[in-house]
């Protein structure tokens, strides 16, 4: 049973931040509730107040400005899956969102909730890292922005302070000559592995490479070292370079044995999906 709590309806972002400041640790932000209600029910989180932010118009909008899509924190996965702007400008994100959990969770759960909860077994963060997305955060001292890679600090943790609210995620589209690909492996309720790749080509070789892996490590991570090794490589060399990077991937991702499989298994399929995603991204870049 969920212990009793008081629901506070926030009407603006400043309203929500003021409530957070007033109530401190006793309050939690309530968006879709798909993660929060489970935690409350299992008594893993205690909260006397829930601040409902769903009716703040600013947080529910998807706005397009130049080459960037600004996604409000309370936008649902289902909206991202179906929105025409997202599908056109961020097809990799739309594809990843279409695979999140099931349609009931997608209709309820929000992007902001997903990122703030930062469950390592999640799809959107992996894609957003490849897009170099930025989180817009509001607090008592005004707004700040932080690169998503720095916002997500570890398993179930972010840089968000107790009195701060995630407003939106600004996602630049991939530059025109880039191809992208998101691939995942999924057995239980949450994904076992997610891999996002984006590449541009120069004279048939890989030019800029962006890679991110989610679910296997404590948080979604960019693979900067591997990206550097792949720069300038021919597509035919991808397989060999990934094979040679197994040791550094293991050190970076720190896979563990759990219900989703052994660390060996996770590392192996990470290599397989990295190769596949890179080849598909190359294919999409040359189209």
């Amino acid at each position, binding site marked *: 049973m969920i212990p009793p709590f008081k629901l506070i309806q926030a009407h603006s972002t400043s309203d929500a931040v003021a409530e957070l400041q007033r109530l401190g640790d006793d309050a939690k932000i309530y968006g879709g509730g798909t993660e929060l209600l489970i935690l409350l029910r299992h008594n893993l989180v205690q909260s006397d107040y829930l601040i409902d932010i769903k009716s703040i118009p600013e947080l529910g909008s998807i706005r397009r400005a130049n080459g960037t899509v600004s996604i409000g924190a309370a936008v649902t996965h289902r909206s991202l899956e179906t929105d025409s702007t997202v599908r056109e400008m961020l097809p990799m994100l739309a594809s990843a969102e279409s695979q999140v959990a099931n349609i009931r969770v997608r209709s309820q759960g929000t992007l902001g909730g997903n990122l703030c909860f930062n469950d390592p077994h999640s799809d959107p963060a992996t894609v957003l890292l490849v897009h170099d997305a930025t989180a817009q955060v509001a607090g008592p001292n005004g707004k700040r922005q932080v690169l998503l890679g720095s916002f997500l600090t570890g398993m179930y943790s972010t840089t968000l302070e107790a009195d701060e609210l995630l407003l939106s995620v600004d996602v630049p589209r991939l530059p025109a000559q880039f191809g992208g690909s998101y691939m995942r492996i999924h057995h*239980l309720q949450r994904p076992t592995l997610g891999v996002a790749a984006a590449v541009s080509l120069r004279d048939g070789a890989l030019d800029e490479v962006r890679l991110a892996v989610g679910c296997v490590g404590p948080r979604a991570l960019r693979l900067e070292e591997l990206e550097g090794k792949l720069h300038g490589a021919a597509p035919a060399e991808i397989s060999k370079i990934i094979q040679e990077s197994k040791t550094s991937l293991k050190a970076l991702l720190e896979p563990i044995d759990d219900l989703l499989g052994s660390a060996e298994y996770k590392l192996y399929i990470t290599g397989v999906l990295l190769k596949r995603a890179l080849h598909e991204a190359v294919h999409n870049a040359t189209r």
Partner: protein
Amino acid sequence: MGEVDPDTGEFQVLQYAVAVDAGEMLHYKSAVAPLLGGAVMGFGHALFEEIVYADGQIMNADPFQYRLPVLKDLPALMQTSVLVAGDGPGPFGSKGMSQTTIVTAAPAIGNAIYDAIGARVRSLPITPEKILAALGKIPAKK
């Protein structure tokens, strides 16, 4: 008939057929539905279901972690054959049938995987990880 991805160990049943000796059946649809339902439950035993313990605690006692077959696990084609010879010990020559198809799913799927990859997985459930281990791509779990 099934399909194995040799790189990831992912397995999908493509076609599935059951044949049951019913002796006698009075209502075709009522007889055939549990045969198919039983087969699907058998997919669960063969491919997914396992209670995992650690330090005396069940680690997967909720539907988040305990996987049952879902629609995407089913093949496009499932067929049922029922033998009716009136030679059983029950009323009108019937025999016990119902969900007897549960028990044959794991051996059938194990054989389909062996047919596809030439390697045996000898414990249930047959997970992608065990398939990769059978193929020698990752070390077998102790």
